[in-house]
């Protein structure tokens, strides 16, 4: 039985390569593992000034990332860049994220990564967790194995994988992008690509699947099923 809380999080970044990009926003919510609901007041949302702008205020992006952000926020590239320049430094925002996660350990004293929340999100294995690992190294939030100590070390939940398990032989779902999954499930796409909206949607999807699993697992006989 899992008692660790589940942190659904999502980064918005200034690039598509998780090994080099900088976060510009991180949002998170926490799921209560017992009742399977989003814990009231657990929403987290903070912006980061991209590293390249910390080093050089006049840095010019050569990719189309500003176009992407301008499009989803219905804004101009110049406005987006101006906003990013005003955001708090990465170190500052990162520390607030670390402090936030500490509030959701299973213990208040003797905290360790084993009492930390379980990381969850959409496509986090290939993207968000790699950023977490990189920033954990940078700001020394590491365990003895030099891995991030912000999250529970064993389990992670990538909702994209979950979608694959349930839809790998279902032609109705044409792609596994969050936008497409949202549309398929009938979740409103208004405000999509805002990290907080994305994590809330992901959390609701994960809760539905977990409830489904719990319902099914009590009816399935696993023990000695290979005999």
């Amino acid at each position, binding site marked *: 039985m899992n008692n660790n809380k589940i942190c659904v999080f999502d980064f918005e970044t200034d690039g598509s390569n998780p090994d080099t990009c900088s976060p510009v926003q991180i949002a998170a919510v926490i799921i209560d593992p017992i009742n399977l609901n989003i814990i009231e007041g657990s929403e987290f949302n903070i912006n980061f000034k991209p590293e390249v702008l910390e080093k050089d205020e006049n840095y010019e992006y050569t990719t189309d990332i500003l176009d992407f952000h301008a499009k989803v926020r219905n804004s101009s590239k110049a406005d987006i860049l101006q906003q990013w320049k005003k955001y708090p430094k990465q170190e500052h925002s990162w520390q607030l994220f670390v402090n936030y996660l500490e*509030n959701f350990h299973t213990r208040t004293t003797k905290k360790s990564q084993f009492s930390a929340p379980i990381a969850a999100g959409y496509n986090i294995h290939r993207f968000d967790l790699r950023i977490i690992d990189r920033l954990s190294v940078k700001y020394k939030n590491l365990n003895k194995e030099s891995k991030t100590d912000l999250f529970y070390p064993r389990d992670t939940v990538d909702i994209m994988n979950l979608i694959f398990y349930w839809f790998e032989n279902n032609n109705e779902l044409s792609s596994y992008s969050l936008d497409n999954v949202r549309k398929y499930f009938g979740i409103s796409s208004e405000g999509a690509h805002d990290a907080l909206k994305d994590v809330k949607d992901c959390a609701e999807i994960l809760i539905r699947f977990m409830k489904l699993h719990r319902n099914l697992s009590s009816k399935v006989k696993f023990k000695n099923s290979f005999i």
Partner: protein
Amino acid sequence: MSSKNFAFSCGCSFPVIDEASQKITFNPDINHINLNCKKTWDLISDGNTKGCFQLESRLGRSYAKKLKPENIEQLSALIAIIRPGCLESFKDGKNITQHYIDIKNGKESIDYLHPSLEPILKTTYSQMIYQEQAMQIAKDIAGFSLQDADSLRKAIGKKLPEQMAKIKLRFIDGCKQTNIVDNDTAEQIFGWIEKSQRYSFNKSHSVSYAMNAFLSAFTKAHFPQIFFASYLKFAKDKIDPQAEIKELIQNANEMDIEVKLPDIRNLNKFFILKENRIYFGLTDIKGVGESVFEKMINTISDKNLDLNETYWLEILFKLLINTNSIAAKALIQSGALDYLCKTRQNMLFEYNAASNLTQKECDKCLELIDTKTSLSSILTIISNKTKLTKNRKTILDNTIYSLDNPPYSLSDQPEWISDCEYSLLGYSLSCTKVDLYDISMTNVTCKEFKNGYNSQKLLLGGEITNLNITKTKTGKTKGSDMAFVTLQDNTGSIDSVIFFPETYKKYRNILFPGHVIIVQGSRSRNGDSFVVEKAYVAKS
């Protein structure tokens, strides 16, 4: 000195030393207290003996309730029969402890091996539970001298076969000479003495223990606040202090005694009793050690801080920032600063922000502190009017930004408060997990159940705080798993909620510590336990 006495309903009275405050004097001397005090015997008979010498364990509490002792003789016997020897020695399929209880409660008849034993065993309802009784039998029936009788005790106790054989011959010979019992009965009595030495206890010890047990129960019955404050103070010396604190607070709550969160204004190192309320001490908070406490006291005195008149930012910059961070956070999270009327999350957030400031910036903050200003506005003044490096200015501006736009809610969620208090104090005083769940359909609380409430269908809700899975020893389902669950709600806890094998099999998926469940069932035949028929996970 006033000559007036303060009298309790039980008749016990104590001299009043200050009429205005109704302060009384109590001499905790066994020779000066009423050994027939009904209030005290009722407390013992109710099994409310947490903290009472020799009777504070679950076993002691349970047997005190079963036996319902009414005098020191019976209390002494209780202390003797709850020792492992008696509990593990069986006669006619029942242990000696149960024999004694059943005879005392009239469920079993008194049966002497020989009428000559009656004067010796009368006080213990025909059971041989003291070593002194074996010695007395040897003296009266076999004509032993007290010295010889003591040799008998030692030989049996040390299991010396050669010496035993010699003593047995002397015992049988002695019986022939006194001619009180025949040879067969003499053999039987000696065999019984031999067996009894495995469990019998020294009466002189047992009576002394009983006196101490009565004295502690007397104090608990008459001065419960002082009793709990003292026991909580010394809970630190127990093997598991947090478990001890939890049990004592639960027991105090059941007796309607208020235990309050630590309050920094009291500046008390340990638990104290103030205005009929017990307050946690500051060093009773996990993470606040004695050295931190001493340092805090020195800081308060050096800076001439009047905590009653001081506001949050002053405490932050004059006290917390100079304290180690674990202790400072523990003070905030445990509720020791709640009187400042700021949420704990908010204080923690501002503490984290302030701990990133340089000493010079902190000094500047202190200069600018004013009751009307917020941390954000003070930092804005520093950022705008002080000469700072570019890096420091950025850090300050970032801090101001997050103070004005906190990235998460700074309200205190009940579950977080409950977790913090449980971890730091060993008990959640402000709220429990149960507060977050809908248990409105229940018809009994833990306290009501303990107090004897009964109905055909009992519905009880609470958090599982302990789960003990065991195998049944008898019956049709012998060897199957069953569970003993401890359920806790806002009124107390019950540690004997029983899931028998069939029910356990059905509901084992929801039986985990931390779950808030609702159980439907009935009171067990012996009246102490809750036997579950159905269980549900409570909805939040």
